[in-house]
């Protein structure tokens, strides 16, 4: 743990992956882990491993702000279930990592506090919204970290930072204690430097939680399969994902090379179609804002969070607090979502988007009849320059075009590093059917072994 704190002290002033450190907590936990180790009572493979938590998960007693001014000074009064489970596994919590405000964004530039830099190139973004968590692992500041993924917010930063990131099946990991962005799309997952580590963390955090009615007790079943390799597996290549607008040549090349590696290792490559891909983006940008507009209504200055001083009436308290406390992207999405749910627009927007969502899910179901996993680039581009996509919000939204389908359909998705383009990491995305983490991890591990990482 001391080593990690030293690395943080050395590297984080430039990278700024963290928003706040919890050195006292970490020291206490590290000491306890040390004692357990010495007395032969280790809790398991995660015991004593220093890790970081995205600033959207409640860690009891620690300030959690979701990257927003509206929660400045808010101290969590309970642990998120994921955090509680990791504590039970002996985790040493180094601190909270930076993210886009309320997890809305693909670059971590929407954080109200500061911008995190990509460890590979400080002029570039680490991706988002879990940019800080990705960067912390990439820079070896933490052994692993936890993030959340609503439209790609774990996978995309994992790809841009050259680490492994997994979004589990919807319902696999408890959302209790995760500050909600879009309730039917959010999932909690981890960043690690290897696929094997990913399996360890997932085992610790997955499983039914009686405090989350959307969590499942389906068994993971990953222990036996992990090292089985890709021989005999059919990997689907969706044409729409390979022909997406804005796909960089270098990214395409790296992914093609990765596909050759997989083929050589015994995988069969199959063409599949996901015809509603472009509509999926539109559906996502109705459903996610709609749900978030409702989830963020609780930030009203009554029970917690900042209250605008000088608010004389209730309406002023609400409007000034929220208008002043939320950043621009959050306000955009809340307004968009409110509009999509409002009287006269509900059928044309929200209801229609949920129907298109069904079609997207059906696309995947049909594709999975022809293959065991779907493979593509995670992001159409490598890490882009800070400030280069902030002028037009929709340009930023396009970063998620390859990842958000898995959120709409509730599928597990893994991103593993698969090479470089212009010296920057490229990620390979592996999607499996619902509850198919074992398959995704097996393909990821198989690729690691074959690729020689």
């Amino acid at each position, binding site marked *: 743990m001391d080593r990690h704190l030293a690395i943080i002290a050395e590297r984080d002033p430039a990278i700024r992956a963290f928003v706040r450190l919890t050195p006292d907590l970490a020291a206490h936990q590290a000491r306890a882990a040390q004692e357990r180790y010495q007395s032969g009572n280790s809790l398991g493979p995660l015991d004593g491993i220093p890790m970081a938590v995205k600033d959207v998960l409640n860690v009891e007693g620690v300030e959690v702000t979701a990257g927003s001014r509206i929660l400045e000074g808010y101290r969590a009064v309970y642990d998120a279930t994921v955090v509680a489970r990791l504590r039970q596994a002996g985790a040493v919590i180094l601190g909270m990592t930076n993210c886009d405000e309320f997890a809305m964004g693909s670059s971590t530039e929407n954080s109200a506090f500061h911008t995190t830099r990509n460890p590979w190139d400080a002029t570039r973004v680490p991706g988002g919204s879990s940019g800080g968590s990705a960067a912390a692992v990439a820079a070896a500041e933490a052994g692993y970290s936890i993030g959340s993924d609503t439209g790609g917010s774990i996978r995309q930063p994992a790809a841009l930072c050259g680490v492994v990131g997994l979004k589990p099946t919807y319902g696999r990991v408890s959302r209790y204690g995760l500050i909600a962005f879009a309730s039917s799309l959010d999932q909690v997952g981890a960043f690690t430097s290897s696929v094997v580590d990913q399996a360890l963390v997932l085992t610790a955090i997955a499983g039914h939680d009686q*405090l989350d009615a959307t969590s499942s007790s389906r068994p993971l079943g990953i222990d036996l399969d992990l090292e089985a390799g890709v021989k005999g597996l059919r990997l689907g290549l969706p044409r729409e994902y390979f022909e997406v607008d804005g796909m960089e040549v270098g990214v395409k090349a790296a992914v093609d090379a990765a596909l050759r590696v997989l083929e050589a290792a015994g995988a069969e490559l199959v063409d599949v179609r996901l015809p509603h891909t472009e509509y999926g983006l539109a559906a996502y940008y109705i459903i996610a804002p709609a749900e978030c507009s409702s989830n963020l209504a609780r930030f009203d200055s009554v*029970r917690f969070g900042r209250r605008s001083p000088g608010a004389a009436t209730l309406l002023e308290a609400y409007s000034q607090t929220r208008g002043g406390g939320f950043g621009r992207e959050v306000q955009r999405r809340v307004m968009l979502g409110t509009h999509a749910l409002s009287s006269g627009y509900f059928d044309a927007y929200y209801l229609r988007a949920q129907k298109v969502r069904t079609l997207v899910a059906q696309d995947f179901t049909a594709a999975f009849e022809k293959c065991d996993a779907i493979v593509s680039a995670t992001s159409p581009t490598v890490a882009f320059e800070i400030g280069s996509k902030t002028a037009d919000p929709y340009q930023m939204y396009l970063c998620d075009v390859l990842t958000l389908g898995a959120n709409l359909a509730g599928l597990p998705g893994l991103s593993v590093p698969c090479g470089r383009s212009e010296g920057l990491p490229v990620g390979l995305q592996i999607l499996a059917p619902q509850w198919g983490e074992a398959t995704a991890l097996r393909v990821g591990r198989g690729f690691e072994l074959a690729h020689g990482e």
Partner: protein
Amino acid sequence: MASENWRAVIGMEVHVQLATQSKMFCACPTDYLEQPPNQNTCPTCLGLPGALPVANRRAVELVVKSGLALGCQIALQTKFDRKNYFYPDLPKGYQISQYDLPIASGGGVQVGERMVRITRVHLEEDTGKLAHAGDNLQGASESLVDLNRAGLPLMEIVSEPDLDSADQARDYAVELRAILRTIGASEAEMENGQLRVEANVSVRRSEDAALGVKTELKNINSFRSLHRAIGHEIERQIGLLEAGGVVIQETRGWSEAKSQTYSQRSKEFAEDYRYFPEPDLPPLELAPAWVAKIAATIPELPRARRLRLMESHQLGDYDAGLLVQDGARADLFEAALALGAPAKPLANWIVGHAPKLPAPDLAELVILVSEGRINREQALVVMARAESSGQSPAQIVAESNLAQVSDDADLAVLIDQVLVLLPQAVADYRAGKAQAMGALMAGIKSASQGRANMKAASRLLAERLQR
């Protein structure tokens, strides 16, 4: 109340606090009236960031049971929806409720001669409570929020506008309460907020088919207020329309103090609740076997029980009606009756004195009174002692020698004593002052320490004074 050519049209919306141990979406206790503010809270009912709801099975069960008792169809596929609006007593900024797939719909309640149709019965969570700093709203610059009540399970029962008078509306509410108490869904006391009644009231001329503009009456805290508020509102609307005015669609509160309805500040802007299905709660599939099991637990409902008691035991409508207001009370009646207590005195005793005795003891007590062994005042004393000590009334009477003196010979001795003690009263009576009899009766009572059977004593005294 409506004059000859006017008809009133009334629909009722009733909110019922369900009798559960824990809140609707979290395990916090429901005893909010006995706790300091914000004591019974947790991340979920406080609406803290990251908290999630998990639905209370018993609350769902009680709504199914209520729906069945009200003759409704139960929706085997049902769900929760979010109703979005901002208010300090609503922690999440939305209320989890039900919009288009309520648990129950399409039933009815017989009220007198009329069948009042039930539109829907659904489940939702309660809000917190607001108090205003300072004695009155004016001058208060702050409001105080207590979230102990936030998240309690609430059942909403909506009727069609099938009622046409304040009497009927009150009777509907009374009948509803009796049903809810009988099936154990709620204590349903209006005075402590367990039963909240709102009425939609409009009027129309008899010859008009179209309904008039309706107002929504709120802030009604008792059945009596309900009756008065509706009565006043009907008059107000008729008066307005007869004078050529128009009724404005609005919410009106009832002021008990001023005996009138008043306009509640209409909204500056229309609220749009933006209902959408609650993503944190999967849709509910109710198993038909489960619903059937619940149906089997519904006891005899008040109306059926009332009719049966009237027929089998010659009880009047009024007495039977009072008994069935409370299932436990009616149970006690039938049990004590089976042990030999006479029906009408037993009914009067239960309704008048609310005994907390087991049936055998109650039967014993009522029999003692009706046989003249003790009088009513003595019986009240015996009842109090039996309730606190657990002894049977017969035991108490025997031990404390409370038995009435009814024997003619015993009474004759007593009377002679009193005549000697009160010669003036005797003289007055003989002189024609009939009221002197009262003094003599009081003397007999006091001399016997209240144990004299006054009816017998009166007869004997009159005979004695003739001589």
